[in-house]
């Protein structure tokens, strides 16, 4: 896609981070960590914060190996995120279940707003959870990032035709579910 006006800002952010400037890293974190976190949540990560931090850390550590524009960066960082999610899922299935007493203490929700936010997010997730993980990640990537089919295909390492099929079936499944809810 033709460069947009945000490309110079991205270039500056990247250059700053590559120079080791915390402002550059902070900028990258603020611009992308929330989006990675949303992807991790929607994909059903057990601990989306850990996945997000891990993804951003890997990106920071390998920043000098990245080349490309902002769109390429988005594809790159979401590919890292997806692979971290897959690894996390594998680890999760191997990890022994903790009892409530053993579970690490979770940060306490700070405000009513957070509860409301989670309620809305839960409602969205309830419906998205009806989809297969492949359908969900395709649809969520397109919803969050407005990525093209080819971009999503690159991230999920599938042919574009498969991504289109996943998207179509996912949307059809959502529509069926909503129809069923309406009927009931």
């Amino acid at each position: 896609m033709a460069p947009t006006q945000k490309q110079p800002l991205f270039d500056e952010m990247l250059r700053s981070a590559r120079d080791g400037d915390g402002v550059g890293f902070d900028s990258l974190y603020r611009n992308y960590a929330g989006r990675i976190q949303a992807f991790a949540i929607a994909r059903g990560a057990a601990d989306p914060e850990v996945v997000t931090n891990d993804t951003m850390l890997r990106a920071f550590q390998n920043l000098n190996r990245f080349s490309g524009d902002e769109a390429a960066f988005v594809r790159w960082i979401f590919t890292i995120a997806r692979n971290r999610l897959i690894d996390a899922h594998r680890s999760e299935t191997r990890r022994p279940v903790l009892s409530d007493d053993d579970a690490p203490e979770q940060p306490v929700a700070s405000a009513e707003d957070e509860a409301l936010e989670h309620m809305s997010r839960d409602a969205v997730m309830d419906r998205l959870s009806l989809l297969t993980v492949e359908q969900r990640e395709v649809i969520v990537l397109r919803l969050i990032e407005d990525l093209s089919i080819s971009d999503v295909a690159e991230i999920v390492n599938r042919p574009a035709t498969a991504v289109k099929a996943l998207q179509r079936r996912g949307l059809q499944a959502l529509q069926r579910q909503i129809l069923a809810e309406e009927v009931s």
Partner: protein
Amino acid sequence: MNDQDDVYQGDMEPLTPDELDAALAEATSAADPEHVTARFLHEASQTLRSVQPPTPSPALSEFIGVSTSTDTDMVIVLPRHSAVEASAQQRKPKMFASLATAAATTGGKLLVGAAALVSVAGGAHATGVVDLVPDGDNEQTVQVATQPDGPADEVLGDFRIAAGQAGSVLLYVEDGAVVSAAVSSEDGWSAEQSEGDEDVKVVFTNEDGDEVVVMARLEGELVRVEVADDQDDDSEISFFEANGSPATIADMDNGSSRSDDSDSSSSDSSDDSDSSDDDSDDDSSDDDSDSDDDDSDDDPDDD
């Protein structure tokens, strides 16, 4: 599975302008499940986009905490969307609604994301998008944005013609001719445009010499759009009314003949073969563990 949905666009019964208007008018109504689907997609998008970054881990804080700048307030925040995209974003709920309606009514397909957010040059008053995705090997996507409130004598409709991965062309009809308003090419592709008196031709080429050609011209009262991809050795021909609506078969009979060389698009069996692993994806998401074992070995940061 669901092959009945895979109908060549010329054989589909498109929304009439009245139906499209009605769908848009009902976009804020919860009465129609298809529109609820559209609204859900919009809400999901908003909800997911509102997710805030977590607290940085100690390891990340080591990166973020090192500032060589004297001004710690210089954090760069990128706009999520360009101005044009932002305009499209404002139309998103209606677009989702019309997309959902198109799928339910015509057998067309829902399309979300960037491709659905058609940027319409001079089309701030555009009110809807109908997505018509031809099936088959050919991946060209034809999207039509209508602007029924527009000055009919000047610009009748805008057409965003997307040609596979090469780019897209924004067309409109003005003074009895097809005019190109904008051409955008994807990374690795360049575009060359030639515009005749009544037709438009845009040739996209990439470094490998692949070529995608978009040609549009008026035939009678219809706009004929052909997208030819030499990679697939295939071309897709579509007809639209000058106001941006997909042409019906009756329109074609009256206005122009149709060179239907896209019979292969009557089925998307190729899609299914590519995604045979998701044939059962109408089931619940309990198969996450299976899917996760497929392809995590290509971590770009592990190169």
